[in-house]
């Protein structure tokens, strides 16, 4: 009697929340079979990500961040638990999850345009050729490559290649963006530039995004919430930090905000334990 009352009271609120959830990770476990037994990287990991949310994940090297991301992408099999994307369990990779890898992984024998087009053709099979090209142009333009449409990917600098990678992921119009240290290989100037590019495009599209990073400042500047993972084995979510800065964000304002160093210290404290 009392139980049912409680449930009845909770129900309306729960419904609105579940409608807002884009990614629902439940009891996620990952076990790698290795020599001399099994290695449990993640155990019973729980995480909800709301629609239009930008999440950064930080954690020590080897704790299982990439493992988590590749499982969401469907490129790595799930040992236990479930991942629901917009309510549907993930079983295999698909273009509804745009992935940006650490190395740009463009096809070097294709031009920037062809690299983006390859995905656009898959996602919009019924669009006319012209429409598809316009989609590619739009995103390449947005990431600042308006002069490099027809350059071979192998002729582009690392930073430019990663711009194409970002354009390629956004052009798929995915439900969620998965970025695994996309700027890890870039120098700090290019990195800051690309953070701006990413935020600019993201502000327009508001695609739910998960980004792994090692850089505390990057995680604060970009994210609505920073997820901190405990060190493995059996890693879990250790702590979550909300970053309520207004959007669109301007780097200077963020850095000079009175709370910035508070957040920064919080993250560094976590990492140093």
């Amino acid at each position, binding site marked *: 009697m009392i139980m049912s009352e409680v449930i009845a009271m909770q129900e309306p609120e729960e419904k609105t929340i579940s409608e807002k959830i884009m990614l629902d990770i439940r009891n996620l476990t990952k076990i790698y079979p290795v020599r001399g037994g099994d290695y449990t990287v993640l155990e019973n990991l729980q995480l909800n990500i709301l629609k239009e949310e930008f999440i950064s994940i930080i954690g020590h090297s080897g704790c299982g961040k990439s493992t988590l991301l590749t499982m969401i*992408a*469907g*490129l790595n099999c799930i040992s236990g638990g479930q991942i629901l994307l917009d309510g549907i369990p993930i079983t295999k990779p698909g*273009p509804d999850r745009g*992935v940006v*890898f650490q190395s740009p992984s463009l096809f070097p*024998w294709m031009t920037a345009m062809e690299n983006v087009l390859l*995905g656009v053709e*898959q996602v919009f099979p019924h669009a006319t050729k012209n429409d598809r090209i316009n989609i590619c142009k739009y995103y390449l333009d947005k990431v600042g490559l308006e002069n490099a449409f027809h350059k071979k990917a192998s002729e582009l600098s690392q930073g430019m290649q990663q711009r194409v990678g970002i354009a390629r992921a956004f052009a798929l119009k995915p439900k969620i963006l998965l970025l695994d240290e996309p700027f890890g290989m870039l120098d700090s100037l290019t990195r800051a530039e690309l953070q701006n590019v990413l935020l600019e495009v993201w502000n327009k599209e508001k695609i739910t995004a998960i980004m792994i990073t090692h850089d505390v400042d990057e995680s604060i500047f970009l994210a609505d919430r920073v997820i901190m993972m405990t060190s493995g084995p059996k890693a879990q979510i250790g702590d979550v930090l909300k970053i309520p800065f207004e959007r669109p964000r301007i780097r200077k304002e963020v850095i000079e905000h009175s709370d910035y160093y508070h957040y920064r210290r919080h993250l560094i404290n976590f990492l140093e334990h």
Partner: protein
Amino acid sequence: MKAVAIKFLNITGMRWGIPLVKLFSGEQVLQQLKEIGKTIVAPILAIIGFLLIWSFFASQITTSLGRLPGPVAVWQQAQSLWQEHLVERKKADEFYARQEDRNAKRRAENPGAKISTVEFTGKPTYIDQIITSLKTVFMGFTIASLIALPIGVICGLSKTVMKAFNPLIQIFKPVSPLAWLPIVTMIVSAVYVTNNGFFAKSFIISAITVSLCSLWATLINTALGVSSVNIDYINVAKVLQLSPTKKTFKILLPATLPLIFTGLRISLGVGWMVLIASEMLAQNPGLGKFIWDEFQNGSSHSLARIMVAVFTIGIIGFILDRVMVELQKLVSFEKASL
């Protein structure tokens, strides 16, 4: 002008000419002279040394066919082979001119007359034999590639297929053309029975033998290339849910192309090498038969002529290799490779 010259030298594999071009344009004279010493003078000295040692030993050794020919004798034979070729060509031209004359006259007398043209049947010259050899090796190489590429791709795609084929590949790879030839001869004789087919029987036998020996390098390299394509590329293909055909032609093959060309290059080299042996035995009218005939012939010029053939084989092999390297550069997408 300078840039064009340098590019030409680069492509033809005559990189040693580059410092010369730079020297004439007055660029860093001292450094170019040093470079010339290394890349031009040293090889020339080596060649002169080789010729000297060769002439010395040639004058010491007497074979049943007379004195072992030295560089001069070989050079003379090279020239005389060229002369014979020109003479034979002239004969052919005259023959065709006479025939054309005759036919024209006959047509003038009687417009409805049946006019037959006859092929000139002189004996093949050295140049004809080189051309036959080239045709044979390309035929064999094409057959080998047509077999090796698809099987290589399939082996690269599936570990099971690879494991299945591997023992066969390992067993057949080291077999010499001399061992294949009798089998190929018997099979071709049994299967290819027409007497006036488009290809001569000996041509087909040599070509198939060449392919049997040369297809392995392409097969192995293709399989290796396809199975070791960057895992990120495969992941992108998975994320985009590319169809198997699209994945193969848009991603796997382009990614593997450099390795495929490495395989093709080795295959062509092997093919050219085994061609001579199989032509000798199959009596295909190419360089191999030329050597064999000269050997059987046993005239005083024979050894010198065989040596001309040795140099011809070496130089053509080198040119074929250069061509493959350049093709490989064209398809290779990594700027710094090679």
